[in-house]
């Protein structure tokens, strides 16, 4: 579709307010030979219960229906893995369903869960996501991931998903990045930032103290992308409990969690980038129709939208999500973000798709220092910090869990519980990880609203999950 009807552009509406009550996650790592997936899911649900001072059994007694995000069941050779987890969590005979939308699976799982509560079907629902890609060697893993591309038209071309994705990075690099060394260094800065923030997160899979030059010296994966520009492939689980207003306030009474209003919206675009057709740029509330009129003069080579340089799915998810939540300017309205940094360059592309900067100027979000917890140029708090968890590059990408992990991260700032959840020595020790001597509290002070972006591969699915302190709603 390249033209939308007014019906299709209608802002989605939830029939009643929906709240995130609590959330949890397991440790994340490259491989976990000592744990079955169900053990990771139990860890996540147990944490969610603990955050609201409940036993797992007490929390479970509220759950009415269950939504499970698990993308790659061909990795584990277990169809209906969702049913295995559901049984092991002791949630039979409640209704449950599996959700899979590639890298956006975690966000899509929340999308379904929120709608279940908004509709009145359930007053309390579980969103649980997980992934494990450690049970095949890397080559076979690359083949299995490439099966998420078009089986006849793309997969036989190398059986390597990076190849289908990276052509888009190349186009962005040449057209908007103008192949500038300064832009290459900005991309590297994102990796330094995300591996660096992961150092303060005991759950994170890849904490690293590195420099821009380390990133630029890492092996080329697909030029200009290098190994340290790429996200992780992780094992782990994450969950969230979604409720209506009465249940949310009952469950959190006398606990440190304030129920947070949650809005989730979704967009999609062609599975094969090849099938993208030229269209007008759909505008966000902070953009005007004339601002892109001379885009191709400013950036020679821009001859299509979204072409291979933008993600229409992200743009549409932002359009629907901002409309639902009353967001008119994401830079002003949000206090903290978790973005889907599959690659450093796609992180920049997303800044534009979701309106943090206009198309062509995404790099400025990093170069200005706005994206940091503490702006390196001014020493003051960053205007809109992103990926303080470490993101997909530093914390994890356990596909079905990722969008839910991001949501927990954003919530932990609004709950003002970030330090509590990350500083406990016993937790670091239990995970067999060394807490750094320079551990730093990354709590975003006074955070009231935030957003997480969940994104699939070449942009086939994207969700926006928006969280707000209910006393600081926008509309």
């Amino acid at each position: 579709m390249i033209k939308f009807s007014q019906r299709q552009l209608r802002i989605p509406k939830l029939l009643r307010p929906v709240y995130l009550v609590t959330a949890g996650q397991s440790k994340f790592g490259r491989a976990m030979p000592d744990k079955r997936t169900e053990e990771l899911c139990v860890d996540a649900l147990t944490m969610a219960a603990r955050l609201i001072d409940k036993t797992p059994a007490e929390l479970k007694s509220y759950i009415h229906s269950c939504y499970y995000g698990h993308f790659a069941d061909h990795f584990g050779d277990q169809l209906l893995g969702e049913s295995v987890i559901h049984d092991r969590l002791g949630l039979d005979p409640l209704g449950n369903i599996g959700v899979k939308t590639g890298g956006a699976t975690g966000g899509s799982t929340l999308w379904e869960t929120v709608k279940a509560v908004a509709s009145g079907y359930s007053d309390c629902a579980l969103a649980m996501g997980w992934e494990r890609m450690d049970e095949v060697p890397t080559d076979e893993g690359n083949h299995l991931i490439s099966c998420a591309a078009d089986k006849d038209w793309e997969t036989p071309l190398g059986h390597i998903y990076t190849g289908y994705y990276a052509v888009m990075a190349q186009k962005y690099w040449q057209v908007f990045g103008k192949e500038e060394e300064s832009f290459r260094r900005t991309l590297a800065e994102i990796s330094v930032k995300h591996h660096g923030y992961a150092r303060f997160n005991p759950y994170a899979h890849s904490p690293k103290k590195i420099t821009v030059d380390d990133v630029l010296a890492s092996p080329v994966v697909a030029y200009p992308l290098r190994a340290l520009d790429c996200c992780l492939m992780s094992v782990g689980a994450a969950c969230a409990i979604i409720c209506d207003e009465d249940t949310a306030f009952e469950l959190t009474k006398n606990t440190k969690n304030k129920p947070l209003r949650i809005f989730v919206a979704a967009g999609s675009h062609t599975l094969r980038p090849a099938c993208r057709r030229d269209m007008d740029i759909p505008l966000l509330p902070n953009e005007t129709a004339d601002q892109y009129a001379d885009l191709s003069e400013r950036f020679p080579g821009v001859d299509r939208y979204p072409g291979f340089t933008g993600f229409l799915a992200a743009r549409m998810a932002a359009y629907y999500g901002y409309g639902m939540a009353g967001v008119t300017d994401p830079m002003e309205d949000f206090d903290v973000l978790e973005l889907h940094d599959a690659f450093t360059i796609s992180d920049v592309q997303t800044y534009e798709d979701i309106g943090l900067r206009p198309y062509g100027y995404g790099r400025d979000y990093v170069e200005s220092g706005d994206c940091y917890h503490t702006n390196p140029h001014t020493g003051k708090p960053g205007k809109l910090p992103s990926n303080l968890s470490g993101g997909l590059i530093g914390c994890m990408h356990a596909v079905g869990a990722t969008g839910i992990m991001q949501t927990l991260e954003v919530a932990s700032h609004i709950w003002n519980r970030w330090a509590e959840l990350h500083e406990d020595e016993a937790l670091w020790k239990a995970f067999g990880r060394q807490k750094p001597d320079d551990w730093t509290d990354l709590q975003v002070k006074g955070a009231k609203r935030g957003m997480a972006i969940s994104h699939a591969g070449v942009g086939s699915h994207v969700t926006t999950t928006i969280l707000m302190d209910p006393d600081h709603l926008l509309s």
Partner: protein
Amino acid sequence: MSKQGTVRVVNGRYKFSGEFHHATPNTPITNDDEGGKLVGVTNPRDMTYVHTYGGEAVFFEGLGKGILYGTRCDNPKCEFTGTQYIPFRIHCPDCLGRNTVVDFTKTCRTTATVHTFMVCERSGAFNVLDKPIKFINIEFEGVGTILMSYLSLGEPTIGMKVVPIFRTTDPTFTITDLSWVPEGADEGDLPDGFTFG
């Protein structure tokens, strides 16, 4: 060695012959860090899948004959009638009418330009292309979409003019039977089995 499975369609049904899988025993996985304690088992799998190209079969058959088929919506009632598609689309994505199959070989020989590219040093299991793989996405005059394929000679650049080559000897009937070379390349330099069609 048993015969690898093959399939034909007879009387509207698949007729299978040969071996479609090989049973291999599981082996234990033990933990060397903990005195060889059992962790799990390997689950070997060797299967042959069966897959229909359906309405796209004409495209994949055409490649081995040196023809590149695309499609076009000719539905006069479609808002976007006349839109042309490579990759081949059986149905128009707008009106869902059945598209007309069009021989685009000449258009591809004369108007193919590299929209973007990527040189990929790595591949996944089951890859049969030579590495590095030079992925190219190609735009054509009058065509609404941008085909993904691979370059067999030279180094790709954005804006480069390319021409199609086809595996006309022993075709595999997969998308790998189609590749591209820079405009002006010599037939003698083409990979084994490939011709200009």
